[in-house]
């Protein structure tokens, strides 16, 4: 079986649409870049102030002043634009960003995401995550289905929320789930697992879509 993170990245990549402005978070979301369908073109935005970011074209071309939000060296496509942090977050908060893909610690039945701290254990801080979840037109959470066997899709988040905005899609290595007003709708399951496996690994109640599909990866 493929490493879960590549399965997730590959499935998320199918959600990207031609012409979108997209922000990818660090971790699994960053891997999405490698699976973008060849027939579409998207622009990547990064919190530290760039539209038109690309992977580093080749080793040796690192520029000390050109990095992504994880401080890794990147490239810029012809026609890229750089700007300050106020404009960068204006783009995010102002509804000009079509899609953000973020990692997650927990998502609950209301579609609320928690991904910025584990009180008493790990406090990295929210960075740009709260603004991204609040402001992006579409939010996809890309995360493993469980962590150390514990479900990450829960009835109610026990960790501090990133935003009270309902996220639009959850993609894991086992399933694709769409949060809605009615609850979490199970839309796709991986060919590697059964429906029972998914239900057993999920604490939240799932509404099984009438149109349940096999996840294409």
């Amino acid at each position: 079986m493929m490493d879960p993170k590549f399965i997730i990245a590959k499935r998320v990549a199918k959600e990207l649409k031609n012409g979108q402005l997209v922000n990818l978070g660090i971790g699994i979301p960053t891997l999405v870049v490698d699976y973008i369908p060849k027939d579409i073109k998207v622009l990547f935005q990064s919190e530290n102030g760039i539209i038109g970011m690309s992977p580093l074209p080749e080793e040796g071309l690192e520029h000390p002043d050109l990095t992504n939000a994880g401080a890794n060296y990147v490239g810029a496509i012809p026609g890229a634009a750089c700007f300050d942090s106020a404009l960068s977050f204006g783009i995010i908060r102002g509804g000009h960003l079509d899609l953000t893909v973020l990692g997650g610690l927990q998502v609950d039945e209301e579609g609320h995401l928690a991904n910025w701290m584990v009180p008493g254990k790990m406090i990295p801080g929210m960075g740009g995550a709260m603004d991204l979840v609040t402001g992006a037109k579409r939010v996809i959470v890309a995360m493993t289905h469980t962590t150390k066997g514990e479900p990450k899709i829960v009835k109610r988040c026990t960790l501090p929320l990133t935003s009270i905005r309902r996220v639009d899609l959850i993609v894991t290595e086992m399933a694709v789930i769409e949060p809605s007003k009615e609850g979490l709708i199970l839309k796709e399951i991986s060919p590697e697992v059964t429906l029972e496996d998914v239900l057993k690994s999920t604490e939240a109640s799932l509404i099984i879509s009438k149109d349940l599909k096999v996840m294409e990866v």
Partner: protein
Amino acid sequence: MRLLNVEEAIKMIPDGAIVMIGGFLGVGSPNTLIDEIIKQKRSNLTIIANDTAFPDKGVGKIIVNKLAKKVIVSHIGTNPETQKQMIERFLEVELVPQGTLVEKIRAGGLGLGGILTPTGVGTIIAEGKQIMNIEGKDYMLELPLKADFAIIKAKRSDCNGNLVYSLTARNFNPIMATAASTVIAEVEEILPVGTISPDEVHTPGIFIDYIVKSR
């Protein structure tokens, strides 16, 4: 605008000062000035910055040398020393969402009494904050931030202090340049007045008090 050497520049900053420092995970940080803060052991500082970078990079070095008593930042995850000092109660950490942090600084510099943001509404960071409903949507009041000093980094300056930044090294620098009583800009190149076209100036020289050349 006056040109200073790095020793003189840092001598102006007293222990206990509130200092804004530009940069994003160390990219676009005024490293010559940061190294001199460490050399002169300026202590008890309150640092306002995007993040605490890495232990060996940018703002991170000030944390590792235990020169800060408080940081107001959006992210500390790349510098384990910050969390360690926070748990030991040596360092106070105030976490602010990145977009809110930059707007608080902008408000401080540009004469606004605060900003209204939807970011954080309904989360733990909204506790104790004023919520206002505007046209059917909830916003949170966030107050302006100012500092005694801002130390920032630009690619080049002219002799009037007009600044040009480079690529993603711009980040918080131009915003911080507006929000401190004294602004010290570290630059790689100092050019004659007139060689930077007015259209290319990112920060007008009126915001800059002192220029220091990068080492």
